[in-house]
């Protein structure tokens, strides 16, 4: 069974440029998460989807960040414009259901460097 797929794995951009990250969850997983992980820190939830509905986006900086999961499968996270402080690893995870007992499976992440 394929795991959570993320692309690109690495991205280097200049500040003020836009950037997008893509995530394809494990087949059949209805819940999808986007996390931000700064160097030396634990992940912080940005947004959680149940199917195509964003059920928790309270930590998403909506002035520059946006996300979508149009068909309830794969998802895209966008930053426009990027700032130096956005340099981090962006993790995607998925789970079968919405219970906290449902194991979250993480992707390898996208490492973003903003110059």
């Amino acid at each position, binding site marked *: 069974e394929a*795991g*959570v797929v993320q692309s690109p794995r690495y991205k280097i951009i200049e500040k003020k440029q836009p950037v997008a990250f893509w995530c394809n969850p494990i087949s059949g997983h209805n819940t999808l998460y986007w996390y931000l992980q700064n160097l*030396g*820190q*634990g*992940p*912080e*939830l940005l947004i*959680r989807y149940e199917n195509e509905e964003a059920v*928790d986006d309270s930590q998403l900086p909506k002035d520059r960040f946006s996300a979508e999961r149009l068909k309830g499968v794969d998802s895209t996270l966008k930053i426009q414009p990027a700032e130096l402080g956005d340099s981090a690893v962006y*993790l995607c*995870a998925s789970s079968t259901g919405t219970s*906290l*007992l449902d*194991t*979250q*499976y*993480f*992707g*390898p*992440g996208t490492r973003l460097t903003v110059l």
Partner: protein
Amino acid sequence: AQTVTQSQPEMSVQEAETVTLSCTYDTSENNYYLFWYKQPPSRQMILVIRQEAYKQQNATENRFSVNFQKAAKSFSLKISDSQLGDTAMYFCAFAPNAGKSTFGDGTTLTVKP
């Protein structure tokens, strides 16, 4: 707001020995879940073990076990018979019954041959 504290930024252990990673949390919730995740170098984060707060019995998964002290809000991870493949960053995480997970800043564990 919930907080999770991992007071040991780095730890090391000899292969085959036992090591304990510490985690404390702060919450006013009564029903919640606690997790330990492992993030090996350049690899995906995976769930190691989880504990439901209403269960008094400590969770165990093979060589991994926890010491859950609800009153003290402590949730330590014990790794027995450490293996080289256990080298990774370990994150403790807390999640209230109807909320999102809060992660600690991690402990980097190195298993030495």
